[in-house]
């Protein structure tokens, strides 16, 4: 059994991920998704808000986690726009605002061109301080975010009327890749504002940590690309109905094809490893 070079495993993984991407790129097909409760809870929480409500959206990731999180950001933004809700975007990661701009450009500016910056949505940019930022916005939002990304004072933005602290938002969404992220939002914002609903989109790595806060302090969560795909399917079904969904709104579901084959390969490897282990054990038992 010492004959298996680990490079064969690497090659198999490469094919298991690369071929479905090509297959999917050529045929355009995706697998159907049935939502699990945490994803459904995200959808329901947004559906429940009255039109015109303001929603705090925090982009707490950078390009390294874009593969998992950008589709969530796109779906959240599309859902918010469709429901005529007003996202106030901030970021705890330095590269978050850039990611937010990309999402705003691809969703709002392209598909909802009637929405006005500063009135229907706004990007307040990044602030250093990690959880320190969260502690401050719990009591004084404007102290941490005095101006929007282009330097306009928050006091002059209609979307910010009457917002003085994080608790003034009925809903907060964090799209987070690690520290600071979902856990810090729970600890410093959700815990101290019982009326506030917190949703999180998290990477697979974070999911196991953040799960312990669901469904108490965390009303809903999208876990990894699977959660993104489920939520994306829910949003597509609500908005597009039977029409064809634009390619940028199927990104998460496209990524599920390589997931499936990657997972199947891993399962096959675990089975193979155990088969080899038990075969070897039997040999030893016979001829010590």
């Amino acid at each position: 059994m010492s004959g298996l070079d680990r490079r064969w495993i690497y090659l198999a993984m490469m094919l298991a991920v690369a071929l479905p991407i090509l297959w999917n790129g050529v045929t355009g097909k995706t697998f159907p998704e049935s939502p699990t409760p945490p994803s459904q809870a995200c959808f329901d929480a947004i559906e429940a808000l009255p039109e015109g409500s303001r929603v705090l959206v925090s982009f707490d990731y950078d390009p390294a986690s874009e593969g998992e999180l950008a589709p969530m950001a796109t779906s959240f933004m599309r859902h918010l726009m469709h429901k005529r809700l007003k996202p106030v975007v901030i970021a705890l990661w330095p590269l978050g605002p850039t990611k937010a701009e990309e999402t705003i450009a691809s969703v709002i500016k392209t598909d909802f061109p009637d929405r006005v910056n500063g009135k229907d949505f706004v990007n307040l940019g990044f602030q250093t301080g990690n959880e320190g930022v969260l502690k401050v916005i719990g009591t004084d939002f404007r102290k941490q975010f005095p101006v929007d990304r282009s330097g306009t004072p928050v006091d002059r933005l209609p979307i910010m009327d009457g917002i003085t602290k994080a608790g003034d938002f009925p809903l907060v969404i964090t799209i987070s890749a690690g520290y600071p992220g979902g856990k810090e939002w729970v600890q410093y914002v959700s815990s101290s504002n019982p009326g506030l609903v917190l949703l999180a989109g998290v990477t697979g790595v974070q999911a196991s940590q953040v799960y312990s806060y669901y469904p108490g302090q965390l009303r809903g969560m999208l876990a990894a690309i699977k959660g993104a795909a489920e939520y994306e399917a829910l949003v597509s079904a609500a908005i597009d109905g039977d029409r064809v969904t634009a390619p940028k709104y199927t990104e998460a579901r496209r990524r599920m094809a390589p997931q499936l084959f990657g997972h199947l390969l891993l399962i096959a490897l675990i089975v193979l490893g155990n088969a080899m282990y038990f075969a070897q054990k039997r040999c030893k038992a016979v001829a010590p």
Partner: protein
Amino acid sequence: MSRSIALLICLVGGLTMLVSPFLPMATGWANDVTDWFNILAAMAFVLGGGSLLKVQLMRLSARGPGWGYSAVTLLAFAVTLWVGLGKVGVVADPSAPMVPWSGKPDDEGSAFWWIYLYVMTPITSTLFAVLAFYVASAAFRAFRAKNLEATLLLATAFVILLGRTFAGVVLTGWLPDWASGLRLENLAVTIMDVFNTAGNRAIIIGIALGVASTGIRLLLGLDRSYLGGDA
């Protein structure tokens, strides 16, 4: 003497931070200290950069095997510092077009941005992606049903892997509604919700105690190895 002063600084700093959350007058202190730390860490780059230069220059001047790579590292380091600190190719910020240095160093189109986008990002994100291969070889090697503990580890990973894809839906989707809790995708959620929650909570509580105990050992100077040897 120097060590005693250091221990005193450690103790006073630590006690101040311990009581600060309880004093209404001390609410911003934690943020101030964090800012100071960030400034200190930024200034410490002189030490790190010095170490990097010294090691690579030594290798370069010794002309040992692979000295060419040291030259590459030094060149990459110098160029990045130059274009970043000098804001090469950065245009002014729209809010202050008259101030040429007002743009961000990583604005689209600047040289620093180019290096970030086309050199650093592809390398770091590919290294990140390489983990998919390592996960596969680790799973193959380590997930053997040798005993009850190992079997639990393996079985859980198995359920999650299946339950989080379309395969889980296909395999157990036929289960009737009253047994829907046994469908793989729901089983995966239950594992996360119950077992993972319980395990993680205990680990987190334990860590908090460990941090408290380590903190006390440091403040009281029981553990002072970081202060070096001589008086």
